[in-house]
């Protein structure tokens, strides 16, 4: 027993030390500096909650926080729904060639770099030679030009569509969980005369609860890290239409050189992440027996 404990400790120590020095220490530094005034090249001085007061009176911060919340909500609802639906549809003919083809195609956005994915959409939605405008011109036989990323009316939707429909990660998690379900459960349902729809709604989905919750957490938190694609496509504009928290932090630190204000924004972002995970856990009642 003693030997077993030693091994447990031996395996835990490296990861604990890594957490303490890489994450915990950074979090402490982030928290402490959020109460200071710290610009590059200037001395750090304590200013209490002034950074937080400044944040909550800033219209740009409000826009960034609101957009982030909108994207978290969309990603943890519509995106997850698309992923689950895809998994359910594909699982029906899991071994057929078209199911395998669909799975591969659905994975493409996840296997190429997000910079390349952003470039693909820049080309598709380009107002001059973009595929979308060309199709509209072809169908309508009229002069048509829409600047999807830069028109304030369409910018948010255009950016959202870069990631919202591509829910391969959720689909993979749910598909993997489906293969673990005992086939006798489905056989019993089939003998009782249950349709595919009834089996999916009353048997599959409840059994997938933890997998869907995991997918939801991954999808929601991915929106708290989204930076490169927004930077490439709209740079947060027009105005503040597509700015989010990571981009705001990047701008505050790298353009305004205001590290302490960026730290305060970072603390808010971490709190948003914790709240999101807490809410999702509560909704799905994860780790609780039904």
């Amino acid at each position: 027993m003693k030997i077993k404990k030693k091994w447990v400790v031996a395996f835990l120590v490296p990861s604990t030390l890594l957490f303490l020095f890489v994450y915990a220490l950074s979090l402490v530094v982030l928290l402490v500096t959020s109460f200071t005034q710290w610009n590059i090249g200037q001395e750090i001085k304590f200013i209490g909650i002034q950074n937080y007061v400044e944040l909550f009176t800033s219209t740009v911060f409000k826009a960034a926080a609101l957009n982030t919340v909108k994207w978290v909500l969309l990603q943890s609802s519509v995106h997850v729904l698309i992923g689950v639906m895809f998994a359910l549809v594909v699982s029906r003919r899991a071994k057929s060639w078209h199911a395998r083809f669909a799975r591969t195609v659905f994975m493409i956005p996840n296997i190429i770099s997000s910079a390349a994915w952003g470039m693909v959409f820049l080309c598709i939605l380009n107002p001059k030679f973009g595929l979308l405008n060309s199709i509209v011109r072809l169908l309508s036989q009229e002069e048509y030009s829409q600047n999807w990323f830069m028109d304030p009316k369409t910018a948010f939707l255009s950016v959202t569509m870069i990631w919202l429909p591509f829910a391969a990660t959720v689909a993979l998690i749910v598909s993997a969980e489906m293969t673990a379900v005992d086939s006798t459960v489905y056989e019993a349902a089939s003998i009782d005369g249950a349709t595919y729809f009834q089996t999916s709604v009353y048997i599959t989905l409840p059994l997938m609860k933890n997998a869907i919750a995991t997918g939801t957490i991954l999808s929601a938190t991915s929106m708290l890290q989204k930076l490169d694609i927004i930077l490439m496509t709209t740079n947060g504009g027009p105005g503040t239409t597509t700015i989010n928290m990571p981009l705001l932090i990047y701008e505050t630190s790298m353009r305004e050189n205001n590290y302490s204000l960026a730290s305060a924004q970072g603390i808010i972002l971490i709190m948003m992440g914790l709240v999101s995970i807490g809410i999702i856990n509560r909704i799905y009642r994860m780790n609780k027996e039904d």
Partner: protein
Amino acid sequence: MKRKVLALFLVGAMVSSFVVGCGKSDGTDSGSQSESEKNEDIVTLKYATYRVGNHPSAAQEKACLDRFEELYGDEIKLEIEELPSDQAYADKMKVLAASGELPDVVDGKNGIKELAIDNGQAVDILPMLEDDQEWKADLSEDAIQANMSEDGKLYSLVALTQLSGYFYNTEMFADAGIEPAKTWEEFMDNCEKLDAKGHTPLALMTGENCWATNILLAAMIGTNGEAGNEFMNTKYPDTYQTPEVIDALERMKVLLEKYTTEDAIGALYANAANNFMQGEAAMFCNGLWMTPDFENPEKSMEGFSDKVGIAMFPENGLMTTYPEGWVVCADSPEKQDAAMKLLKVFTDAEGQQAAMEYTKDVPCGNNVEITDQFAAENPLFAQMMEDRKGTEYAFATFDVTAYPTVVDSFSKYYPDLVYGNITAEEMAKKLDEAAESSK
């Protein structure tokens, strides 16, 4: 048994490779004492650059660095960090500035010079420049004064003067029956005539730092009387809510709405330049450094260089700026001396000559001869030099006078201005807010 033998073999291999690694190092030390002594005399100088790869100044910089190696290779070892994009360079330098670890020589663009001064790394190079009067004579007094700080210290040096008017497609101008405009009313009239003939008048862009668009905006402001000209020559102006800025923004709104390509809003520099060089727009605002691209078949359509003219802005306006240039951040006297040698290679008459020949940059001093042959081979350069004599309004760009946050705000609020979400007055207020966040 087999596993034990394999484990023993692997341990043996690791130990032997370790011993061999150490052995090699020992051998070098004992075998070349004189080499070691020589190495102690060599100063290692760290230099970071973005002028690499496809950058227009890459060839010029390489020529200078080759010359540096030739002149000082025996005494100075140059460690070069290449960052292949302006933005990546600025971001990396800012992070290094935060920890006081800027390389020994850096380019001071995008506010890096100010950060180096703030963190105490930037060295006042004026005394060292004064010690080399021959070199100082290669630099114009204007170029030195442009980089002089209020406390009389000199933290950076440049090799060139940036001049920018606009390039125009002579065939399109002839087709529309127009000449380069003398007034802004005439300029707008020219746009209308080009448009009526089916030519897109301007290649503009509002992505990145809105370079081509903001040169034109700066021209409208900088040629708008004494007040406008003073505004465009003031570093970090108090406010953007001036009549000249608002007038120019209103005119820019019209140009972006009616007289440019459909991809201009959000377009990058490369998109706008491509629109001009492929004959899809009649005018493009940029400096002389663009002229080599007109003969590059990978960038321009065939025979394009024969169709390009160059003109000053209306009211005889010309963007004339001295960029921040190179900043010395070396800490020891030896390294500072080595850094000054590098700056000299970049900025003395020979360095300016390289800039002129490779990138068509205008030398900032008077000791570089512009030969008749060079003028004949570079007619756009020659004409700009001639036109320059008639400059009534010289002005800087926003990249030089404004905080990076303000430059960034242009790209965010031009779309809002064009799509009617904000007025010119409101955009000027947004620029003030952006400036405030950097103070």
